[in-house]
Each structure stands twice: as C-alpha cells, then as structure tokens.
C-alpha cells in the first residue's frame, strides 16, 4: 500500500533509495526540524489548503459543499499537527477517521491529503534550509515520513476494518434477503427472487422455499423472477429443481415475471419448463393462484380497494 | 488412514444401521437437517450397493477437521466383483438390477467430493466427502 502511494512523488523516490542507510536512526524525530514545522504551521497549512483545493474540481469531493469541505480540511490538518505535537497516534485521529468513515468520505481524500501534506512540508523545510546536502535531505524526508506514515497506516487500518465489518454485515443481510417468503393470503405465498443465482444461493433458496411452504401451509407458491437479471441454463435448472421439490412436498409452483428476453432464452436454450405453470406477471400469476385455490376476484360497486389494489401494489406498476 | 468408525454390511438391516450412524456423525459435526438427509441417503445408496452387488463390505466414517472447514468423509469398501466400466455406472438410469440406476450418480450429486476406485474381480472402494456449509 505505502509503496503505491509513493510512486508519483519525486522526493520520496529519493527517500526509498537511501532508506537502507537511514533505518537505524529512523524512529527518532529531529527536534529542530520538528520545531520548524510547528512554528510555521500557518504557512504550511495555507500551502496545504491550496494543494488540496486543486484536486477538488473533478473528483469525489466536488459534490461536497464548500463549507463542509473547508471545515473538514481544517479539522484534518489540526489532527495531523496534534499528532506531530504529541508525537504519535492520537484519539483525535481515531475520532476524525471514524467520523469520515461514517460520513462516507473516501479513503483517498485522507491519503491524497496526507501525500499533499508530505510534499508541502518537505518543500517548506527545504526552502528554509541554508544548504541542502543529501544528509540533510534524508533527515528531512525521514522526519516527515515518521510523522505521516503512521497516520496513513492508522487510517488505512481503520478504513479497511470498517470495510470488512460492512462486508460481513452485508453478507448476513444478503443471506436473509436471499429468499424472503411472503404469505400474501391464506395458502398463497410469494417468493420474489432478486439478483444473481449461483449454486450456493440456489440451495439456500430451495431450503427457504420448502420450509416456507410447510410453515405457511401454502397450496400455491409464486416464484417471481422479475428481479433475476440473467436466466441461463444453470439458473433455469435450479428453478425447475425448486419447482419439482415444491411439487414433491405437495404444493404447486407458478413461475412468474417471465420477461420477453427470458422467454426467448428459455426457448433458445431448449430448456423444458415442463408442466410448470408460468405467467408473465405477478398479477396474472396471483389470479391463477386464486383460481387454483378456488377463489376469485369479486368486483364490488364503489370499492375498488381490496384485492385489486393489493394486486396493483404487488406489481408495483 | 485410520477411520474412526466402521459399520460392516452383511445383512440388509445393516443398511439402516449404517445410515443412522452416518446421520449421527453428520449431526454432531454441525450439518443442517437437509445435509443430514443428503448424507444419510448417500450412505444408504452405497451400503445397498454393497449388499446387492458385493454381498459384504463396510462403510467407514471420518470427521475432517481442517483450519477453515469441517466435513465428513465416508468410505465404502467391498471385495466384490468390482465395476468394469465406471463411466457407465455413473450414468443416470444405468442399472444391472432393475433399479432406478439413481444410486451412484445420485451420491455424486448429494456429496461434495466423490471418487471410485474399482478393479474387476477385486472389489470397489468409493470415497466421498461432504463439507459443512458456512
């Protein structure tokens, strides 16, 4: 990670070359350089703000309001300085990164900002120095790195930690979402399938489907594939298997939401949907399900509510 | 490999015994009810094949505990006539006994890993594994 961030930076390229020699003295901060930076924080901050605003126009932060962007920049730079003063990672840094994570700011805002900070600070110190030999240069680079790198590491860790957390949460959510069963009416249940179906998910769907049929005592289940983007032979195979298993446990499946392109693929691929009833829309499928359970829609004068509106809301049309 | 436990298949009733033991193992390892049924059914198929075609043999179980996954390993061994054409018996519907011919191809689908080693006149060994779903 750190290497990639360094690539475009001229000074750092030098630094990488000379790092081998420097390592023994690496951890210590140079008091003198330290105080140059702290005493000139106003200038450095000003230069830095100019730098970060340059990037602002065509990137992720362009959607953020001017005020928020500025106040965040101020806070950011304060956090950086306080970590210099206290010589280490501070709780301000934790709080700040947590806040940005929650607000959904990208990690690159922080890493770009810190790289800009690195450049600005190095340039500033060098401009203040009387003579720039390689010894002095490496001292400066080392000091700035020792300052900036831990902050970057800390931020990257925080961010990736939160990503992992989010990914694991999403996995659980997805599994729950994977195959919800909606008992719309006595003996009629709907299972809307959304998203891509792979073998693992197909198994889960089948299990949920069958358990749900038993639980809701469903005579008819409507499997709605409107939300399945691609129906290939594999997906069709899984759906057929689910429908057959439903038949074995004593219920009936109606496959609904067959879009034109899905009908085409099914026929072109030579998939035999056999004797499973299919319907183009959930609405038609639901009507068929009502008939199969010996019910029908009765129109009453003055009441367009009821089943009709239920059907409409089912279709979302 | 030393298997934890083996069940001899000598009589028809041993088929039921083998699958019951297999189900208990599966339950203990943490398989869900559906996978328990898959495993018990696979064992039933393998044990019946031994009983029908090789007369006697055994079914052995081994619990696999790896760092990142758990599973049940099932081994079916007999010293029967062996299988001459393995690809043929793996076809759905092939049977020499008037059965459905669903057994072996079915076991392959029920389980996650499946291997047959067989030599005519010497016997048959089928190794199959099911992994616990995460």
């Amino acid at each position, binding site marked *: 990670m750190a290497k990639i961030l360094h690539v475009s930076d001229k000074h750092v390229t030098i630094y990488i070359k000379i790092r081998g020699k420097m390592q023994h003295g690496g951890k210590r901060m140079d008091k003198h350089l330290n105080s140059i930076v702290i005493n000139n924080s106003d200038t450095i901050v000003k230069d830095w703000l100019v730098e970060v605003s340059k990037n602002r126009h065509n990137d992720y932060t362009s959607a953020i309001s001017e005020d928020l962007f500025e106040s965040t920049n101020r806070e950011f730079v304060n956090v950086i300085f306080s970590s210099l003063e206290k010589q280490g990672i501070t709780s301000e840094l934790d709080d700040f990164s947590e806040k940005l994570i929650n607000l959904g700011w990208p990690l690159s805002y922080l890493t770009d900002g810190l790289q800009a900070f690195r450049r600005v600070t190095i340039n500033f110190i060098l401009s203040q120095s009387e003579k720039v030999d390689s010894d002095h240069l490496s001292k400066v680079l080392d000091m700035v790195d020792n300052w900036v790198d831990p902050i970057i590491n800390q931020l990257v860790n925080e961010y990736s930690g939160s990503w992992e957390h989010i990914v694991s949460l999403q996995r659980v959510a997805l599994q729950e979402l994977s195959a919800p069963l909606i008992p719309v009416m006595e003996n009629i249940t709907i299972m809307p399938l959304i998203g891509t179906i792979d073998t693992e998910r197909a198994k889960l769907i089948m299990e949920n489907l*069958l358990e749900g049929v038993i639980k809701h*005592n469903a005579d008819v289940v409507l499997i709605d594939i409107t939300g399945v983007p691609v129906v290939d032979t594999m997906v069709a195979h899984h759906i057929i298997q689910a429908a057959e298993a439903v038949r074995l*446990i004593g219920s009936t499946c109606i496959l609904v939401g067959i879009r034109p392109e899905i009908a085409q693929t099914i026929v072109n691929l030579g998939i035999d949907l056999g004797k499973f009833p299919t319907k183009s829309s959930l609405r038609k499928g639901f009507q068929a399900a009502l008939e199969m359970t010996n019910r029908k829609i009765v129109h009453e004068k003055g009441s367009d509510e009821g089943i009709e509106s239920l059907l409409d809301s089912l279709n979302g049309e | 490999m030393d298997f934890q436990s083996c069940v001899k298949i000598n009589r028809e009733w041993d088929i039921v015994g083998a699958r019951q033991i297999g189900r208990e193992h599966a339950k203990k390892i943490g398989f869900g009810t559906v996978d328990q049924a898959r495993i018990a059914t696979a064992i039933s198929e393998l044990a019946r094949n031994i009983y029908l075609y090789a007369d006697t043999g055994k079914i052995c179980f081994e619990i696999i505990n790896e760092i990142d996954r758990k599973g049940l390993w099932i081994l079916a061994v007999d010293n029967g006539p062996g299988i001459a054409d393995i690809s043929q018996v793996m076809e759905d519907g092939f049977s020499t006994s008037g059965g459905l011919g669903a057994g072996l191809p079915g076991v392959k689908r029920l389980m996650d890993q499946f291997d047959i080693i067989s030599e005519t006149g010497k016997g048959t060994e089928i190794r199959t594994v099911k992994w616990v779903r995460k």
Partner: protein
Amino acid sequence: MRIPILKLHNYLLISIQTDLDDKTAIQFQEDLLSKIHKSGATGVVIDLTSVDIIDSFIAKVLGDVVTMSDLMGAKVVLTGIQPAVAMTLIDLGIHLKDVQTALDLEQGLIKLRQELEE
C-alpha cells in the same frame, strides 16, 4: 415389521412411522395391493410426514406402488414429504413425475375426493 393400513369409507390411509428398510417396504407393497384388492378401495393416501429418508430403492418401491395401485383402480396421493427428503430426491434425480402429492393427510383426502368426483 408391518405397516398398518386403515380403511375409511372408500379410502385406505397409511401413515408410515418408521425408518423404512427394504423388507418392510416390499412387505408394505404387497399388503397394500392385497388390501386394495379385498376392499375395492378407490383412493389411497400414504402419509410420509415421519419419514426422514427416502433413498432410490424406497423411491422405486413407492413409485411402483403408485403405478400398481393405479392399475388396480385406486388413485394414490403421497403426503407430508419433508423438505429435506424432497431435496434429496431431487439430487438423486428422482422426480416421481406421475405421483400426486399433497401437503398433509387432510389435503390428500381432499385431493382424492376432487379427483374421483371429476
């Protein structure tokens, strides 16, 4: 072991409560056919709610018993097949295509009555 077969009007009701071994299954096939013959029953419900394993052999026996009963003029409905069992059958490639099913015994009887009245 023998599986009990109950008679209710024109129907025969069977609830299989044990882990079916091969001999019991074959015995059941014979018992059911002779009972259909003796009683002249026109419908049969076989409830499998308590059965937690159906392998290819038992599936064949059940499929055969349905076809045989049909030949003898009795419609058969299988009821209460457990989800885990259904999924296993699908994996085995057994679909029991010509067999009628229902969720439970009661539904099975309703289905029979509808079919026989048609």
